[in-house]
């Protein structure tokens, strides 16, 4: 196992994860969003896979990537429900204004996209690298 890569991968992992969250959250006003954020998060875990193997990446992720996709899809579906209450139209988003920052169900929806993309990519990465090592 390459020592330098393994050590640096921890650092890169946290930086990439932080960047992915940053990109996810700023996506509404600046370039970014759930899709790109999810891709970068997946890349963060892929770095761990390349450096330390699938098992350590799995251990860091804790939950199964398929479950992650399910959670994301569930969040996206649920985020549309409040719209049914107020506007009688699915996926009409709700907003709250907290100190100039608008937060709403659209953010939840974007987080859902983030998880689905991240989980989907990681499904493939984990599976393929597991095979490659054996």
């Amino acid at each position, binding site marked *: 196992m390459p020592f330098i890569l393994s050590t640096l991968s921890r650092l890169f992992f946290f930086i990439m994860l932080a960047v992915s969250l940053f990109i996810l959250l700023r996506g509404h006003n600046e370039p970014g969003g759930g899709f790109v954020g999810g891709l970068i998060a997946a890349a963060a875990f892929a770095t761990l896979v390349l450096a330390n193997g699938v098992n350590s990446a799995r251990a860091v992720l804790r939950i199964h990537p398929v479950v992650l996709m399910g959670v994301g899809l569930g969040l996206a579906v649920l985020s549309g429900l409040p719209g049914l209450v107020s506007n009688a139209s699915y996926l009409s988003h709700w907003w709250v204004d907290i100190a100039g920052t608008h937060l709403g169900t659209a953010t939840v929806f*974007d987080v859902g*996209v983030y998880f689905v993309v991240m989980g989907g990519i990681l499904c493939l990465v984990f599976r393929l690298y597991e095979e490659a090592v054996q």
Partner: protein
Amino acid sequence: MPFEAIIAIALAGALIARPVAPLIGRWSGWVFAVLPLSLFVFLAAHIPQIGVEGVLLATHEWIPSLGIALGFRLDGFSLLFSLLITGIGTLVVIYAGSYFAEKPPAQAGRFLALILLFMTAMLGTVLSDDLIVMFVFWELTSLTSFMLIGFDSHKLEARKSALQSLLVTGGGGLALFAGILLIGLTLGTFSFTEVIARSDELIAGPYLVPIIILILAGAFTKSAQFPFHFWLPNAMAAPTPASAYLHSATMVKLGVFLLARFDGVFADVPAFGVTLVIFGMITMSIAAFEALRASGFKAVLAQSTVASLGILVMLIGLDGEVAVVATVGFIITHAFYKAALFFCAGTAIHATGESSLRKLGGLARFLPITAAAAVLASLSMAGLPPFVGFISKEYLFEAQLESNWNMVPVIVAVLVNAIMVGVAGVVSIRPFFLNRDRITSVHHGEKPGLLVGPLLLASAGILMGFFSQYAAQLLIAPAASALYGAPIDVSFALWHGLTPMLALSALVVTIGALILVFWDSIHIVLRRRRVLHGLFGDRGYQAVHDGILGFARASTRWLQNGDQNHYTAIVVATVVLVLAVGMLASEDGLALALSDDPFRISVIAVLAIAAVGAMSSIFARSLIAALVCVGIVGFASALLFMMNGAPDLALTQFAVETLLVIILSAILLRLPVRRHHTRSLTERRRDGFLAVAFSGVIFVAIVSMTAMPLDFRLSEYFGQTSYLEAYGRNVVNVILVDYRAIDTLGEIAVVAFATMAAWALLRSATAKPGKDGKG
């Protein structure tokens, strides 16, 4: 009148039946019967009101943008059907509780849940006023029927029959849906009440013929009319309580229900009635003939059910008040005696384990009350006085004699009814009283739960015969008036005097008795003729079914032969062809023009990098090197996005390219490192030709597209409103998560499911036993 409450209560029962029934154990049938029984009582309490007011309507908004409302309509006809559904439903639930007593409790729970779900769907279908709502419930009956026919899913026959019934009734359902949409297109409403009020507009409308054909297709498939008559006898693979309920008393009558409803709408279209009479006659003749050939207990009953449905369809096609009364009367009569006979058949088959009439005999020793019920029910079926079957047969002949038709329908009806008399005798006398040596012991005797249903229904047949004036006033007159559109004075009485109908009845009974006496010889002669095997069966269905599967297999073999090069070639060739034809055929023609934008040296540089990457991928010796070269093209295009004001796209492209290299190298690492090309020179030439053609077509397409004036209205709208309405300045993201969020939802669902499928495929291809636990 809380219609929704009725449906909601039934649905709630269906939902709790599966978990709760096993807890109650052997009494579950009795306990759950309370639910349909209370609905029955509740509906029955509306009989006086309907008798006075005629129609009760209730409407709630559902999807106003599509003009669909939760509209419900209770008139005499739907009340009659709801009473049959809940009444017979009660008996079926009680019967099923005992029928499944020896089976695992979970199985009984599953069955009760399906039966109650089916009851919900039936109630919804007959009570809906909105045609779209009716269609939704209509399809639910097809689905529950599929589940119930395939209930014994370990049997190949059950699965096959279930699929067949689903394909036939589901296909008919789609036709019906198309017909409903055309009605909505013509009249601008889906409310049946309005459709019948404005029927002259519908008849004058442009879609009259397609509407009639589509509705007939829906009704004929559901009610097993020729040429779709084959599925119902096969549906006998269902457990007998389900056969009694779905495939004789209620669901198969939905087609009749629909036709009777629309008979009022198409009253001024003569061809509608003529078609019904002709198809009804063909169906009843075929079914009566097949009944003579059938040897299974349930099979004989099923064929006679198809014949009865044919009689009903023919009656609807006849004009006049008498025909309407005859229709309604026969619906009730048939539901009573046929459900009772199915119950008796179920008990006999369940107690002996034999389903063929040729192996059953002398069961009256073991099942005396069941035998009595079978005899009572079959007397009503045979149409003997004083049973209600006699009255409805009189009405059938009167309706035929009063119509404008010649004697053909009468002759057919006499013959078919005579065979029904024979069937009635065969199914009641032979298994229960003759051939006592065939059965020497039974698995179980009679239980109260197995007796309530057949006894009540069979005795109702004779009670209705004696007290026919009450039945006429309370049930038949409101139902017939609702169908006829005007009040009808119904004199549904046993004795009509010495009429031609009485003579015909006598003739029917005489021929029927002869058929009964010579049943064995007729049966054997008909069965010996090999020509007759499958003559009226499902050969046509099989041919279509196998043909479609064969086509699918052949096209799959050609399209998906496992060669990745082949797939790519097909996809690329298709794109080239479609784009080229599309561009050449378009009216605007090709508008090739150079853009006026200034020449940017940076763009040229990036393009040059991309070109170098693409060229080197062709000459790369190893796959890994080729992958890196393709990656260069990807990063170059990301740079282009960045330079042209699409940072979101660029960001995504960078991320995708990175992950693509990671994923693909995992795959490539496991491929053998090939030094030589595996493709022959001809193949490589073809690949090269395709690649050049693809790039050429795409180039021309892009140039001509950008030369056309762009419509910026949508972009401007999004740009202006994205912050005001959706609080986001990144228009791309706002479109994704807000304006077009439902599209995004669909896309991420596709991503999730496709990935899951790929993940599962990768797992099964390399799974090692006992090792890959984590997945």
